[in-house]
């Protein structure tokens, strides 16, 4: 896990994103504790106030909860919420890319093609398998 000090994205939001993706990926499961403020602050080389802000934001989003004197734990529906948040993040990124492409003068059909071509063909195959379309 690392943060990008050169980015314009607030460092606390970068930490929110790191922890969110760790929760979504199952590194930390519902009911399990997160690393302490002290450990995250020294590991990421980030001011503890900034890590605390990230914790506060994740609590607000319902991904984690604080147990007084013990630390931060993944909330019951934390894994689910973390995955839902990933969808939102992806959607926002797509929206931004679409806006940029349209502003640059590309037409809607071409933008759609570009999105399609950005997806790896392997994932299309695996989806076909899952839905069980008979060949």
């Amino acid at each position, binding site marked *: 896990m690392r943060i990008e000090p050169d980015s314009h994205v607030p460092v606390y939001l970068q930490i929110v994103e790191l922890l969110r993706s760790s929760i979504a990926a199952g590194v930390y499961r519902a009911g399990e504790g997160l690393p302490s403020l002290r450990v995250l602050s020294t590991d990421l*080389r980030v001011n503890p106030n900034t890590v605390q802000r990230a914790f506060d934001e994740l609590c607000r989003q319902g991904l984690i909860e604080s147990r007084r004197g013990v630390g931060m734990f993944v909330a019951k529906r934390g894994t689910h919420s973390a995955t839902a948040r990933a969808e939102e993040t992806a959607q926002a990124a797509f929206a931004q890319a679409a806006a940029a492409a349209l502003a640059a003068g590309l037409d809607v059909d071409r933008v759609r093609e570009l999105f399609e071509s950005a997806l790896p063909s392997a994932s299309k195959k695996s989806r076909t398998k899952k839905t069980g379309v008979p060949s």
Partner: protein
Amino acid sequence: MIPVVAESPAVELLGVTKKFRGGLAVDNLNLTVPRGSTLGLIGPNGAGKSTTIRMLMGTLAPSLGQVRVFGLNVANHAARIRPRVGYVPERHDVYPWMTVSEVIAFTSAFYPHWDVGFCRELMDLFALDGRKAVKHLSKGMLVKLSLLLAVSHHPELLILDEPTSGLDPIVHDDFLEAVLRSVCGRGTTVLHSSHNLEDIRRLADSVCILRAGRILVHGGVDQLLASVKRIRAVLIDGHLPRWVPDGTVSQKIQRREWLLTVDRFDKSLADRIRRENPVESVDVFDLSLGEVFKDYVLGGAEP
């Protein structure tokens, strides 16, 4: 009588000016650092950062104005303030003839709250050899010793004066780790002067950009990056800008490209630039702290 001010900020500069024979080093600084926060002090060489820090440490008296630490005037209460402050100077001139252990024993005697266990922990982290003479330490080891001496009494205010300049990347990283280990969970206030803007981004809650003894901008790092944006407009052939926004930090025109960095950005500002100027297009870009710094320092805008 000593004034008891419980909720006073860690640091207050009230109209602080310092004149040297060569001119004004610091010109009417007003700055507050709340307790528990970290301020990044940045600016080109000669901006007044070290002069400001020396006035905070009480080794230099302001020509005008007042410097207060924990609500106490440094001019009258230096002896009361000193044990609550840790200081890592730019040059590490600690007793070259002593061994590392001797310097530690000597320094610890000045501080009633010296934490022997924490001092040991840092010696291990830094792999500092107690038997070694200070004059034989490498530059990196000397900086580590200097930090260890500054934080082993758990200061309430830690002042770092360009501590990492000239360190190799590994020593640099150790240094950051040790600073964080020493401030974590203690509500330490940190004033960190540095040319390394990545360090400032990692460690600072707020930032103050100095130039020629004056404050160009002071505010939360995230707020600053949200409000300062670069705008690129493409000018219509044969035309020049007609309307330049108030909060323009810097601008330049090259062929059709008009680049300007603006403060207090919002979407209506971009719309207005589009409306009031002969431009083909207007795009807005986010900036890193390094770019914001450069545009402020080189931009020539008056504070």
